[in-house]
């Protein structure tokens, strides 16, 4: 059941909530799974110097990013007892309130999914060359930096 093939993690635009629901439904035939853990990144309407962020425009060094996602996936499968792992990240415009990152891990046991999910999300934030242009309501922008 391990999915070790190279995949394109990127999706154009926001990740729809229906897509997440359908991804969950697809795992109901995998009856060795006892625990799923899902992380969703959502674009915040932060206010900076009185101006509100209305969207983030994501770009990436796609080839390098997909290689990094692949490495993160392989390492997570080695470190944790996972049945499945899925990662999706948006490219292009994602409005405030919409979802830009969907990470989904499943395992027979809950302890594994907690450790695995945090590991994967922290590595995505630190190691994957994705860039975010935060667009304000007046069409000015600033560049997002992960902390």
């Amino acid at each position, binding site marked *: 059941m391990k999915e070790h093939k190279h995949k394109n993690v990127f999706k154009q635009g926001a990740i729809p909530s229906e897509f997440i629901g359908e991804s969950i439904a697809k795992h109901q035939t995998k009856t060795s799974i006892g625990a799923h853990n899902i992380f969703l990144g959502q674009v915040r309407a932060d206010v900076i110097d009185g101006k509100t962020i209305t969207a983030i425009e994501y770009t990436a060094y796609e080839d390098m990013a997909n290689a990094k996602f692949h490495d993160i996936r392989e390492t997570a499968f080695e470190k944790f007892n996972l049945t499945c792992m899925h990662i999706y990240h948006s490219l292009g415009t994602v409005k405030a309130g919409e979802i830009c990152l969907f990470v989904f891990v499943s395992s027979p046991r809950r302890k594994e999914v907690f450790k695995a999910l945090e590991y994967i*999300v922290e590595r995505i934030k630190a190691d994957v060359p994705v860039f975010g242009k935060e667009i304000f309501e007046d069409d000015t922008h600033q560049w997002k930096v992960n902390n």
Partner: protein
Amino acid sequence: MNITIKYFGQIAEVTKQTNETISFPNHLVSELIEHLYVKYPELKNKSFKIAQNQELVSNSTKLTGGDIALLPPFAGG
């Protein structure tokens, strides 16, 4: 040696292009960056990492002719 250089995010705002191929005689990443600082002085105010063939490298890495990318701070997720 021809080197293709890719620019992303706020770096591409400075260079006003997302990639270019230049002929470059020198041997170290640091020398290429010095060359780019002359060409795009505004780059000196920017923070970025450098990848060669999709792997992060340091200033003292030798250029291989592979693709170079200037990567501003990551913002995934």
